[in-house]
């Protein structure tokens, strides 16, 4: 049997990797990739807690499904933004976009 801690550690690691990607990559699409990793890590946690808790309570899975939905929405909007920005500013590099600067 696999202890719960393994899954959690795995998820934490995946999350940190995603975080690093989101924080450090220059390309906006790559940043979104990192975010996807983080969301997946969370999902792993949710399903693991479901499995190790009361199985009859489907809250974990339901939550995970909703995270799927959120992730899909996020990707759709995010990529649309990327394309829109690319059209207008002809760049996909996050650092080059500092319109909100003081």
């Amino acid at each position, binding site marked *: 049997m*696999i202890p719960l801690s*393994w899954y959690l550690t795995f998820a*934490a690691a995946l999350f940190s*990797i995603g975080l690093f990607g989101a*924080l450090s990559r220059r*390309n906006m699409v790559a940043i979104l990739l990192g975010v996807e990793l983080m969301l997946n890590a969370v999902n792993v946690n949710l399903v693991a807690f479901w*499995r190790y808790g009361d199985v009859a309570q489907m809250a974990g899975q339901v939550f995970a499904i909703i995270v799927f939905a959120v992730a899909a929405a996020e990707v759709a909007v995010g990529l649309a933004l990327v394309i829109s920005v690319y059209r207008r500013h002809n760049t996909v590099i996050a650092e080059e976009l500092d319109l909100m600067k003081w």
Partner: protein
Amino acid sequence: MTTEQIIFLIVAGATLASGLLVVTSRNLIHAALWLVATLFGVAIVYTLLNAGFMAVVQVVVYIGAIAILFIFAVMLTRKDMRDSGAQLNSNWWAGALMAVLTFGGLFAMLRTWGGMSKTAAEIPAGFDQIAELGAQLTSPEAYVLPFEVASVLLLAAMVGAVYLAFNKK
């Protein structure tokens, strides 16, 4: 070490490795493909957790839809791929530090938590988790409201995405 544990370690290792490749690959197409691999790994982890439905959804939604979407996005912005040059920004070290700190923090917290070594109970015989999931998602006593909200969110995202990406020439 049971077989299960070994399988888990292998899968986890592979998944984390491909995850690292996702964030480090110079070529975005590669990165997207590595993402597919990572997602697939996570799907296997779901299977290990007896959540077969989740695994299928993971494959269908994430790999089938989201990852493909990424590839499309990458290709649409192909002129400006910037394959050459630094793929990481100037603050990459801070990002790395944050990631490590996060992992460290989470790991430390996991260690002090009591339920760490808890093991999973057997799933009762005849328990149909897919039916149960469906029932709960549509039951007014349970999660119909979040479910509906999520659908509204999706609709909003769809409209928003269409609007943003629409070429207003």
